[in-house]
């Protein structure tokens, strides 16, 4: 009884206050990186795991984003308001003729800005000269058209001029035709053997991403086609440029307007859809690779956790010593958590650098603009930090849970 009273008196009276144990934030970094400084190789290797994960994620995001913005820029330049009208292909792949009235009829649709009729002349072939046996055409076609084509496709000439009225028969070569025939320069005497006649080459076109069939065609005027090649005047493929806001409305009217009698045969398409589809493919394969990057990161994080668990086991004596020096469990946990955080932050930093480097390299090799989304960099680093915390949490708790006396009894 008197003992109890004595203690109570002590509690309020003479017993001094216990000062708190405290670790300054400023001391946490050197304390938390002590283990890393002692075991550098191990630290670098385990940070590398995180770095690889982050690098692959940043690179995937950067590369898909760069190629995507390249495609988007292309789309932007080419426009999504170009439509093509064909009457289907026959079994040999030759375009079937549309009614001769198709082009003027299409011009009347409201929302149509420009129309360019073309006709594939399947009976004619184009050769470098008249010595090459017939048959070896290499997929090159002859196509009749008029001056409206260049405007409608918003194309440009690499060399020379477009189709004009001339004394002699004149042709303008698509990009692929010129390359395949080996024509790189133009002078007054540059000719090709086309449908059994000599045609002077007036110009060479730049490539058309949205109309690759033009790249593979030697273009001649309708007049020349009629006069020299027996062409009947019906178009087989018509290009339509519409008001960007009325693309779908116009597209719906194309088939019926072009060929009222057999509208079901007509195919109206939007070539830019291929690019749009390409972007979608990029995005979905990007998601797949991002998933692979996430797995790499997970492996990296497990690597850190593993190294940290080993480190806690190896450093039992140090933990016991620190508890003897006055460290609380929280201080011990904070020390190990800091260690794992520093590891993952280093890994994250390295990963962002490597990933960005890969993206820059890819973009330069492919001639894209470099577009690394800031979210990839910030996110990559953030994800690294989060995985470091998660990886360090369990080892840190293990270290904190160790009783000081058990820790001290470990020899060595």
């Amino acid at each position, binding site marked *: 009884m008197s003992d109890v009273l004595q*203690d109570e008196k*002590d509690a309020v009276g*003479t*017993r*001094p206050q*216990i*000062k*708190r*144990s*405290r*670790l*300054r934030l*400023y*001391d946490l970094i050197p*304390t938390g990186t*002590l283990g890393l*400084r*002692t075991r550098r190789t191990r630290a670098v290797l385990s940070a590398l795991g995180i770095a690889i994960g982050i690098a692959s994620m940043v690179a995937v995001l950067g590369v898909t984003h760069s190629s995507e913005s390249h495609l988007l820029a292309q789309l932007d330049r080419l426009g999504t308001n170009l439509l093509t009208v064909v009457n289907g292909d026959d079994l040999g792949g030759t375009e079937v003729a549309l009614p001769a009235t198709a082009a003027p009829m299409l011009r009347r649709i409201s929302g149509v800005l420009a129309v360019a009729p073309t006709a594939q002349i399947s009976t004619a072939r184009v050769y470098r000269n008249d010595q090459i046996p017939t048959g070896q055409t290499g997929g090159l076609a002859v196509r009749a058209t008029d001056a409206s084509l260049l405007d409608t496709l918003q194309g440009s000439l690499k060399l020379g001029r477009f189709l004009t009225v001339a004394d002699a028969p004149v042709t303008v070569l698509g990009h692929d035709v010129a390359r395949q025939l080996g024509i790189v320069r133009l002078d007054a005497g540059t000719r090709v053997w086309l449908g059994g006649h000599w045609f002077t080459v007036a110009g060479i076109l730049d490539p058309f991403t949205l109309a690759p069939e033009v790249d593979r065609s030697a273009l001649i005027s309708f007049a020349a086609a009629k006069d020299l090649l027996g062409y009947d005047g019906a178009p087989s493929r018509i290009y339509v440029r519409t008001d960007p806001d009325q693309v779908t409305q116009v597209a719906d009217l194309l088939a019926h307007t072009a060929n009222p009698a057999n509208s079901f045969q007509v195919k109206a398409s939007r070539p830019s859809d291929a690019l749009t589809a390409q972007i979608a493919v990029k995005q979905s394969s990007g998601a797949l690779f991002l998933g692979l990057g996430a797995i790499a990161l997970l492996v990296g994080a497990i690597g850190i956790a593993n190294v940290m668990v080993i480190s806690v086991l190896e450093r039992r*004596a*140090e933990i*016991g*010593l*620190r*508890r*003897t*020096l*006055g*460290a*609380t*469990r929280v*201080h011990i946990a904070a020390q190990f958590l800091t260690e794992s955080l520093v590891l993952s932050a280093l890994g994250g930093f390295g990963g962002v650098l490597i990933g960005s480097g890969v993206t820059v390299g890819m973009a330069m090799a492919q001639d894209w603009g470099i577009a690394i989304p800031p979210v990839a960099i910030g996110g990559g680093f953030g994800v690294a930090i989060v995985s470091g915390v998660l990886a360090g949490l369990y080892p840190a708790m293990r270290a904190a849970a160790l*009783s*000081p*006396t058990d820790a*001290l*009894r470990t*020899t*060595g």
Partner: protein
Amino acid sequence: MTVLELRDVRKVYPGEPPVESVRGVNLAVEAGEMIAIRGASGSGKSTLLHLMAGLDRPTSGSVRLDGQRVEVLTDLQLAGLRAWRVGVVFQQFFLLEALTAVENVASGLLYRGIPARQRRAAAVEALERVGLAHRMRHKVTKLSGGERQRVAIARAVVGRPAIVFADEPTGNLDSAKGGEILSIMRELNEEGTTLVVVTHEERVAAACQRFIEIRDGVVVS
């Protein structure tokens, strides 16, 4: 003034069968004393030291350390007590090998939350007290066993704690080096440090003003 008082302290390690390492120890240490606790291997010396230094709580009985009842303190309060009032020296030194001598000594003040400059200044002074000022900037891995133990002693006394415990401080040293450590501890005691040395060596016990003999967890003399 009584710095440390044990009343009927017992420590039982649970298990099959349970191990009763300390069995009813009564003991008082006055400020300024230097006492030895001597006993054979396995007699419970380290267990007793852990209890006295507030590293562990007794199964029963009371430990009053620097006026505080260890058995009722929270973990946080115990940590505070260890950071501010207690110093411990171990047989295995337990130095941080990546650090220099002065950094190791300064780590004795790390958990007081005082600025690094002040810790370092106090560490330099403590190293001077143990005669190691000239090896201050050397990595502890470059030091001899005796020098390492002097670093550990400096770390224990750097914060001028109320009491310093040493568990077999000469256990890993040859007798010459052990003698040096003993005389350093005596000097520190003469300067006012209260010291409790746990040992199995007759010689160490003889160097203290007073010694207590334990056998199988009980004080026999």
